[in-house]
Each structure stands twice: as C-alpha cells, then as structure tokens.
C-alpha cells in the first residue's frame, strides 16, 4: 500500500497540492482522475519522488519515502515500475535492450536469463518478434506495451502509469487498460493510474480519487462514481457530449 499523508506542494507562489491524504491499495488498480492542470501529475511525481513534497509524507508499506536518503530511495525504486505518458523508451536502444536495461543495471543475471525474462515480459504484453526493432519503428500502442514490459521486467511491487491512454484510439486504449488490470491482479501489484479517460475509470477503477484544484475532492470506485451528487465530479464525469447523452 502507498499512502500520501497531508501532502502539500508549491511551485513558487502557486499552491498545487493542498493537504492531500490518500491511500492506494495493494493488488488494486487505483485511479487518480481530474481535469488537466488539477494537480494529478504533480501528485504522481511526488509519490515517485520526481518532485519533493513541501509538507507531508509519502509512505510505501510503512517505509517513509520522504525521509529516505539517495541510497535508500535507489533501493526502493527497484521495486517501482513506471509507464510514462509517451512511453519514455530509450531512443538509442532496441526494444529488447530497453526491456533488459533495468536487468542489466541492477541484477547479476546471465545474458541468457535476462533475455529469457525480456522475452517473457514482451510475450506477456502480447508483443513478439519485435526484439530488434527501434522505438521509432513502433506504433503508439506498441510503444506503450514495450514501456509496460520494461516497467514489469524487475517484478515491481508498485506500478505507476501516467496517462497510459493518451494519444491512443479507443480500442487500443481498452487493450492497454486491460493489460494493466491483468498485470495488477496477476502479480498483486499496487498500481496507480493517472487518467482523465472515463472509459478507463469505468473499466479498471478499483478505487478512484478525484483531484480538483489541487485538493482531494472525492474518493470512491467505478461503481459509485456515476451515482454521486458531487457537482464538480459530475461536471467532470458527464462533461463530454457522449457521457451527457448517456446520462440523459
């Protein structure tokens, strides 16, 4: 389980995260939703330590991340996998080298063992015969799947996904969502997904946290989100033509 306790974050005078306390459960797909600019990406970057919190703490299974030194964080980070919005695959490496990179850096496995693991995780995300391709030769959906494969190559306990569906068509988005859900269930990972895609919310949202203007505005799940009387959340959920028509 990952917990954010009374977290505040400022950028200059701008108070981006305001006293956020929230927990993300093990073995579940925990979604953070909100409008663009609401602070959800900042919250995720605070959770993984890319931004330092100005107040409050981040706890990973009773380990206070905010108080860890560089070496302790380095060790904890080997338990974290992250899928970035654009994939963040290393341009100068092949797919196989990308997936094997964390194994090369942090394990003492033989080349054959690393290759076996890379092939296994690539097969797990339904990618075969792409080992020698460069990231520039892949489609958007394939890049995301390679990024997921790289993120799970070290058997992470925690998986972070920053807008996994951005730039993808609805069908491919569905495939990526299901993949994240399956991997979470299969390995009992604590998964946190940052999204504003309502399809994702309704299909994989075991828990859903709604961030509004830097504050935790509402918490629930995919079943309760459609029946809330929270005005701001309803504006967000039923903000598109499609969802508003469905509501009517």
């Amino acid at each position, binding site marked *: 389980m990952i917990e954010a306790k009374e977290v505040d974050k400022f950028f200059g005078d701008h108070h981006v995260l305001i006293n956020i306390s929230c927990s993300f459960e093990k073995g579940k797909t925990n979604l953070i939703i909100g409008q663009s600019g609401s602070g959800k990406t900042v919250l995720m970057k605070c959770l*993984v*330590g*890319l931004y330092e919190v100005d107040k409050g703490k981040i706890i990973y299974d009773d380990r206070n991340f905010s108080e860890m030194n560089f070496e302790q*964080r*380095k*060790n*904890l*980070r*080997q338990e*974290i996998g*992250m899928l*970035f*919005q*654009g994939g*963040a*695959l*290393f*341009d100068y490496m092949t797919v196989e080298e990308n997936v094997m*990179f*964390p194994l*090369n*850096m*942090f394990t003492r496995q033989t080349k054959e063992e690393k290759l076996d693991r890379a092939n296994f995780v690539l097969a797990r995300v339904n990618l075969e015969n792409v080992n020698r391709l460069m990231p520039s030769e892949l489609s958007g959906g394939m890049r995301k799947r390679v990024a997921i494969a790289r993120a799970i190559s070290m058997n992470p306990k925690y998986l*972070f996904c920053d807008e996994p569906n951005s730039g993808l068509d609805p069908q491919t988005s569905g495939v990526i969502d299901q993949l994240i859900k399956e991997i979470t269930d299969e390995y009992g990972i604590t998964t946190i997904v940052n999204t504003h895609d309502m399809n994702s919310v309704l299909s994989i949202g075991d828990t859903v946290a709604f961030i509004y203007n830097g504050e935790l505005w509402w918490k629930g799940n995919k079943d309760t989100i459609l029946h809330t009387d929270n005005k701001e959340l309803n504006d967000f959920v039923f903000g598109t033509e499609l969802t508003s028509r469905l509501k009517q």
Partner: protein
Amino acid sequence: MNLKVITNTGDYVLLMLRVFTKPQKGRIFWQRLLNEIQGLGIESIGIVAFISAFMGAVVAIQTAYNIDNPFIPLSMVGFTVRQSVILEFSPTVISLILAGKVGSRIASEIGTMRVTEQIDALEIMGVNSANYLILPKVVASMLINPVLIVLSMWMGILGGWLAMSAFGLVTTTDYVNGIRIDFEAYTIFYALLKTLFFAFIISTVSGFYGYKTSGGALEVGQASTKAVVFSSVLIILFNLILTQLLLT
C-alpha cells in the same frame, strides 16, 4: 542577471557533484564510453581534417605572399604555419568548432531525453541519470579531443606543404626546414593541456544545458544554442588565462 549567473554556476557545480561519482555498473559505463568516443570523436575526424588542411594551406599562402623582404628566408613559411597551427589554431579554433558540433549534439541529445521523460525513467529505476548520461561524454571528450587536435596539427602542416607545392611558392626543403626551426616540445604539451581544459568545458557545459532543459522542442533548440555559446565564450576566456599561465 548576476543572480542568474550565480544560480547557474551553483546548479552546474551541484550537477557535476552528481556526475563525478563512481558509475553504478562498470561494464555499462565502458560500453557507453566506447559509443561516445565513436559519436563525439571518430565522427568528427572528417570535419577536423578538412578544416585543418585548408586553414594550414591558407596560413601558408598568406605568409608566402606577405614575405616580400629578401632578407626573410622562405623557410619562415613553414615556421609560421607550425607555430600558428600548434599554438593556437589546432587547440583553440578546432575546439571552438568542436564546441559547435559536439556541444550541440550533447545538449540536444540530453535535452531531448529530458523533455521525452527518458531521464525521469532513469531516475525512477534508481539510476543516477547525471552520472549515467554525462560522465561517459566527459571522459570520451577528454580522451579523444587530444587525438583530434594532434591530427589537426598534422593536417594543418600537411595542408600548408601541399599548397606550397601545388602553387610553387616555397620548395619542400625550405618548408620542412622552417617546420624544424627552434622547435620546442613544450608547445605540444601546452596545446594538449589547453585541449583537455576545452574538452572538459565543452562536454560539461553542454551536458549541463541539456540536462536542465524543460519544456519541448523549442527549449531543446535553445539549450543547444546556449551550450554552444557558453562553451565558446568559456573557451576564449580560458584560452587567455591558460596562455598567460603556461607561456610566461
């Protein structure tokens, strides 16, 4: 303005403290070092040789046409080419050219990795990204630039000889005699020491501007420009300081 200079200098020093640490995985460091020697050094051989040969030829022609006093021997052409190429042209002017070619490459490569979140991906994995990305470039530049400068010296002197032979201005015997007049090995040491300083400036300043890039493609271009401008300015400044220190 002054505050910005102080802030940038502080940021540069802090980044260098992260860069100059023991690589996390020696084998990967050596692999990257060889790649950087290829990318930053070997791929610059052509342009260095071309410019050096033509500059040597131009220096020789200008000297030959400006010697109109019969008491000045024609061997002075070889002497002038040698002195100008070894003392100033090869270490300084070629370093300025490398600041343009190599500096922009380093800044744009690292800057692109920053804006596409590849550096964040490294950090999340627990990799010291500054050390992983910049150290091999610094070491490669400091190893390969002296080799390029020695090549430049050879090509400059060779270019001068070819021009003299082609246009019949100075005989080979006079030219070679001129090259040998009052030769001091210390001048080579002086040139190579300057080259090492300049290689350090080019790689670290460009790495710094690339690493602190934020935004998108426009900012990557700006970082690349800043890297070239500041590297060039520092090379000129340190050229004056080192010349004063080493030749007095």
